[in-house]
């Protein structure tokens, strides 16, 4: 009981402030056109209409006694509050829907960002590693091995050449030995010729000695045969030595080919270019590695940002709860006011719908968004098109609504 009367008292104060502060109204009349300099969504606040409404509110209020005025005012207030509560619900739903769709979009984006990170990571694997048989070798290692291989190749060429040169030294020594062998053979030939001559002389001397020299003749014949054999042997030896010399000369040519690798300017330049290319390749590999690492990091950051955005969007729930609390408070306030009004036992039939319509139209002027204002008009039964005649038609609707209470 106490609460109801308190609510009523509060209502009375409110109404007093709203209705009878003519000075404020006059100020608002003057301010309205200045505040709204021809916006597209903004209703044109025709000063003449506004004045007419104000005048009619004052006139209509004067026609009613205080109690009726309060009850009618309460009716408009209740309808307006219903309208506002619906608007709050509507806005809350809109925010919820938008937050929901934003969340799902963000989740998609987070998934995409994660995919991107994986793609970048696998790309860096592809770029930085080469599959050789069953091993995965880093391109860096590959380039280093290539360089090491190149150096090793050169070292082997040099080693081979030095062995080749050494081999030719050995061959030179062998040629010297063969030369002295040839000299020895020539010496044998010379000695053999003398032996042959000696044998011949011995034979002649034996013939001259007659019967006494017959035995000596046999010996001379044997010595001659021996000299012929030695001659044959030395001829064979000379032939073989010549063959060996020829063979070694062929070997000398082969060793020269082995020891001599073309190291002309162009050839070296080709190798230098290969070295340069390998270096560039390594540098490029490093640059790609760094770029990919940066890219992967960026993707991870994007993913993290999106995830925190999703978390922030979940605070929409709090907004919804707050708006619901506002609606609950309004609802509770209306119930209390309604209870208080019922206690007064005011006969509803005596209410004046013209006054309600005038007040509603005044409130409608607050809504700058055309869509909102039209909805308010419709809900309170005001005709937008023919504003001056509106009170009559709205009065009937308002009557129906009021009877519901």
């Amino acid at each position, binding site marked *: 009981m106490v609460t109801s009367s308190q609510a009523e008292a509060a209502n009375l104060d409110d109404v007093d402030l709203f209705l009878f502060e003519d000075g404020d109204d006059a100020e608002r009349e003057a301010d309205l056109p200045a505040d709204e300099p021809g916006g597209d969504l903004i209703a044109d606040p025709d000063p003449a209409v506004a004045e007419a409404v104000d005048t009619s509110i004052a006139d209509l209020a004067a026609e009613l006694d205080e109690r009726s005025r309060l009850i009618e005012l309460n009716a408009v207030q209740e309808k307006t509050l219903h309208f506002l509560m619906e608007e709050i619900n509507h806005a809350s739903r809109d925010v919820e829907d938008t937050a929901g769709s934003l969340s799902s979009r963000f989740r998609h984006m987070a998934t995409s960002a994660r995919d991107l990170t994986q793609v970048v990571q696998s790309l860096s694997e592809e770029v930085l590693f080469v599959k050789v048989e069953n091993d995965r070798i880093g391109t860096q290692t590959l380039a280093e091995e290539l360089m090491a291989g190149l150096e090793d190749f050169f070292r082997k*060429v*040099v080693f081979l050449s*030095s062995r080749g*040169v050494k081999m030719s030294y050995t061959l030179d020594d062998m040629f010297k030995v063969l030369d002295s062998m040839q000299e020895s053979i020539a010496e044998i030939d010379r000695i053999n010729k003398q032996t042959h001559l000696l044998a011949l002389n011995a034979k002649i001397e034996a013939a001259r000695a007659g019967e006494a020299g017959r035995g000596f003749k046999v010996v001379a014949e044997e010595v001659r045969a021996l000299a012929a054999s030695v001659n044959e042997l030395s001829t064979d030896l000379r032939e073989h030595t010549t063959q060996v010399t020829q063979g070694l000369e062929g070997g000398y040519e082969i060793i020269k080919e082995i*020891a001599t690798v073309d190291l*002309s*300017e162009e050839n*070296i330049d080709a190798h230098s270019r290969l070295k340069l290319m390998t270096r560039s390749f390594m540098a490029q590999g490093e640059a790609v590695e760094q770029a990919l690492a940066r890219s992967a990091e960026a993707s991870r950051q994007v993913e993290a940002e999106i995830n925190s955005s999703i978390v922030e969007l979940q605070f929409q729930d709090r907004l919804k709860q707050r708006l619901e609390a506002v609606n609950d408070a309004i609802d509770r306030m209306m119930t209390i006011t309604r209870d208080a009004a019922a206690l007064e036992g005011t006969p509803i039939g005596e209410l004046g719908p013209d006054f309600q319509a005038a007040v509603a139209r005044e409130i409608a002027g607050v809504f700058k968004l055309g869509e909102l204002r039209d909805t308010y008009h419709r809900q309170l039964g005001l005709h937008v098109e023919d504003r001056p005649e509106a009170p009559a038609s709205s009065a009937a609707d308002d009557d129906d609504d009021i009877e519901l209470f």
Partner: protein
Amino acid sequence: MELRTEQSGDQFTAWLSGQLKYQDNGAFRQLIEQINAAQVRNCVFDLSELSSIDSAGLGMLVIASDNSENHGWKIEVRNVRGQVRKILDLSRFDKIMTVVPHPADE
């Protein structure tokens, strides 16, 4: 290859000019034997006038290096330039002996 040598105390210097090729191996061998016989501590091969070298020439320098180890003298290759320097760089001769580039070939 043309060759000029000079011995001054412990120091032996050989100026090699022209081209160092396989055909020079006989002359180079004599040079090495000459250095071994001279019983010096240091030997400098001045290559400032050497215009080109082939792998056999590199092989001869390696043999010179082997001999220096076996006969106790130090080898140094000085004033290398142009193609000779490129080849010595490429085959990392600096790993087996002291290689000093020509001042004008930096």
